[in-house]
């Protein structure tokens, strides 16, 4: 089979010592980033991009590094869920439900081990799904013309708030702000200066990496200061691991179900990892609950963890094949691709086959590394979790600024970074989501280009945007993505909250 031979070539890339080294470094860093509360995967990847960039790594190496960080962060998120009852990021929330009660019962080590195995199964199955689905989707996407692409970008923004999004207008607003920032600079097709006010530094536009680090990392620091959260939280002590093969076999079905559901949720636009872990958990509860769920049932740890990791790999499918990311972290990975001058989308699988398949193979390798790392070395990660944020956050901020500084050795970039940090703080205060802003900055140029191509081809007839079945279909999904959350969102959010509250009472 064609795919198989390409994948084998990919392994040839992924198994070179250099690639393995980057996968291991990425896995370790990622787990750390995921484990530290408040840092989160999008944040962590964002901080590392300028570093990878200024180190001059090859595209393949930097992508291997960052996808391993991404996968590792998903593994790491569970550590704080289980030990602190604080999810490292939103998708890890469902892991708290049974993970924390298990830890309270003195089974923290078992919970960590089971969740590591479930995470592995989740990512592994979803990566297989990626191998099967991505080339098919990429081939299909070759049929897309500019008007279909324009509809697809609209769809990406419409569904970004996700089914659990709160205020759709705020998502729209954020997207518009991001797209507006993207229009600053010299217009590519006509050479007209837009919104530059004759400032030389603005001619090339605003660098999205600076914006990402500012919006995420610096605003996070300000929030930590405001909440006086510098001392960190008390965590449950960890016990000695006693895990028999029987215990593992018991959670396997739950992990498989979770993985498949998670993958599907990850691929679909607007669903994302949060929904993946939520569906996996609720389904597992329906299938096998005998009154033990919410009180520390291992299957209740395995299902959402597998779902969460499955969704994380699933989310790479639309990112790689269509160039349209489905989540915050994949948006940040897209930023990496764009800044390496690689345009994602269907052509990626033809023009850069080496790179894509190398990265996919590296995901298999990275997962194995993560599993091996996470079971024996979990104690070390737990120790690091106990470093209070008051020492850690300033150092992380320093590393972030060094990364930004070393890209072009200009203090101006750092001023911009701090400025975006303040903006991010204000946006978060008024509940404007940050991810659509980033996505707007990333997709803006491409979106405008496809609009122009479509309109130039049709000689200014706007009807061209709706003239094929495919583009009409995409527009319908986009509108549904905007409208459905208004109806379904409150119900799902209430359910998620309810299951979370019952745990707090325990």
């Amino acid at each position, binding site marked *: 089979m064609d795919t198989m031979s390409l994948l084998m070539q990919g392994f040839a890339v992924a198994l070179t010592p250099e690639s393995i080294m980057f996968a291991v470094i990425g896995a370790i860093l990622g787990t750390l980033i995921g484990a530290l509360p408040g840092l989160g995967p999008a944040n962590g990847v964002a901080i590392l991009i300028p570093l990878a960039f200024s180190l001059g790594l090859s595209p393949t190496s930097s992508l291997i590094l960052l996808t391993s960080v991404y996968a590792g962060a998903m593994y790491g998120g569970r550590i704080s869920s289980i030990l602190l009852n604080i999810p490292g990021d939103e998708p890890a929330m469902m892991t708290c439900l049974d993970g924390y009660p298990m830890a309270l019962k003195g089974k923290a080590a078992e919970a960590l081990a089971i969740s590591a195995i479930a995470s592995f199964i989740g990512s592994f199955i979803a990566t297989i799904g990626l191998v099967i689905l991505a080339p098919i989707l990429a081939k299909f996407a070759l049929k897309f013309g500019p008007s279909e692409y324009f509809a697809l970008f609209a769809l990406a923004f419409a569904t970004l708030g996700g089914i659990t999004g709160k205020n759709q207008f705020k998502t729209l607003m954020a997207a518009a702000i991001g797209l507006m920032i993207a229009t600053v600079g010299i217009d590519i097709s006509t050479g007209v200066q*837009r919104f530059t006010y004759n400032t030389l530094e603005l001619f090339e536009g605003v660098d999205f990496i600076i914006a990402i680090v500012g919006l995420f990392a610096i605003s996070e*620091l300000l929030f930590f200061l*405001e909440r006086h959260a*510098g001392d960190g939280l008390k965590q449950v002590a960890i016990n000695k691991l006693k895990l028999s093969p029987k215990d593992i076999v018991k959670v396997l079905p739950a992990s498989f179900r979770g993985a498949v559901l998670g993958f599907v949720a990850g691929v679909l636009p607007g669903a994302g990892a949060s929904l993946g872990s939520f569906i996996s958990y609720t389904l597992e509860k329906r299938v096998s609950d005998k009154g033990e769920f919410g009180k520390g049932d291992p299957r209740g740890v395995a299902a959402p963890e597998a779902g969460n990791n499955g969704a994380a790999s699933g989310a790479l499918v639309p990112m790689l094949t269509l160039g349209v990311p489905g989540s915050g972290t994949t948006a940040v990975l897209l930023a990496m691709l764009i800044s390496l001058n690689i345009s994602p989308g269907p052509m990626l699988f033809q023009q850069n086959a080496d790179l894509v398949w190398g990265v996919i193979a590296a995901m298999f390798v990275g997962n194995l590394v993560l599993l091996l790392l996470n079971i024996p070395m979990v104690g070390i990660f737990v120790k690091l979790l106990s470093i209070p944020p008051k020492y850690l*956050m*300033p*150092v992380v901020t320093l590393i972030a600024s060094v990364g930004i500084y070393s890209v072009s050795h200009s203090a101006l970039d750092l001023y911009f970074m701090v400025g975006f940090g303040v903006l991010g703080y204000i946006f978060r205060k008024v509940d404007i989501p940050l991810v659509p802003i980033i996505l707007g900055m990333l997709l803006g140029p491409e979106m405008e280009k496809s609009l122009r191509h479509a309109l130039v081809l049709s000689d200014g007839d706007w009807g061209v945007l709706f003239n094929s079945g495919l583009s009409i279909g995409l527009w319908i999904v986009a509108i549904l993505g905007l409208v459905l959350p208004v109806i379904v969102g409150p119900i799902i959010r209430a359910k998620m909250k309810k299951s979370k509250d019952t745990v707090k009472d325990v």
Partner: protein
Amino acid sequence: MRINDRVFGMLMLILAVVYGWEATKFPIPFGGHESVGPETFPIMLSLILGISSIYLIVRPDPDEKWAPVAMLIELSVVVLSMLAFAWAIEPIGFMPAAALVVSFLSWRMGASIAKSVITGVTSSVVIFFLFNNVLELALPLGLLEF
């Protein structure tokens, strides 16, 4: 209270209007008008932002509380310290500037003075040598050059 969204919506509405108005003032590109010019997409954006700002003004969400004034001042001082760091990195040098800003931040986050100074000095020295010698990305030495 639902002030936040109203004020923010108002600000964004102003932005939308100014942005859209400026877009109509773009110079005509070389080669004359086409069906889509550099202003088409920005005008669409300003419409979207305008409509959603009006929605926000009319139907605001409940406010998230702002920090008390003292905290806001403190946050501004922290922001200024980061800007000062950005300014100082070249004339003063990376190590002293970073040591100062990290110590200050970690002190403001609640660490004791002695411990925050230790954090600041160690982290800046370690990062400097890591970047300069291991990763080979030169950071400015500044005052320590001589």
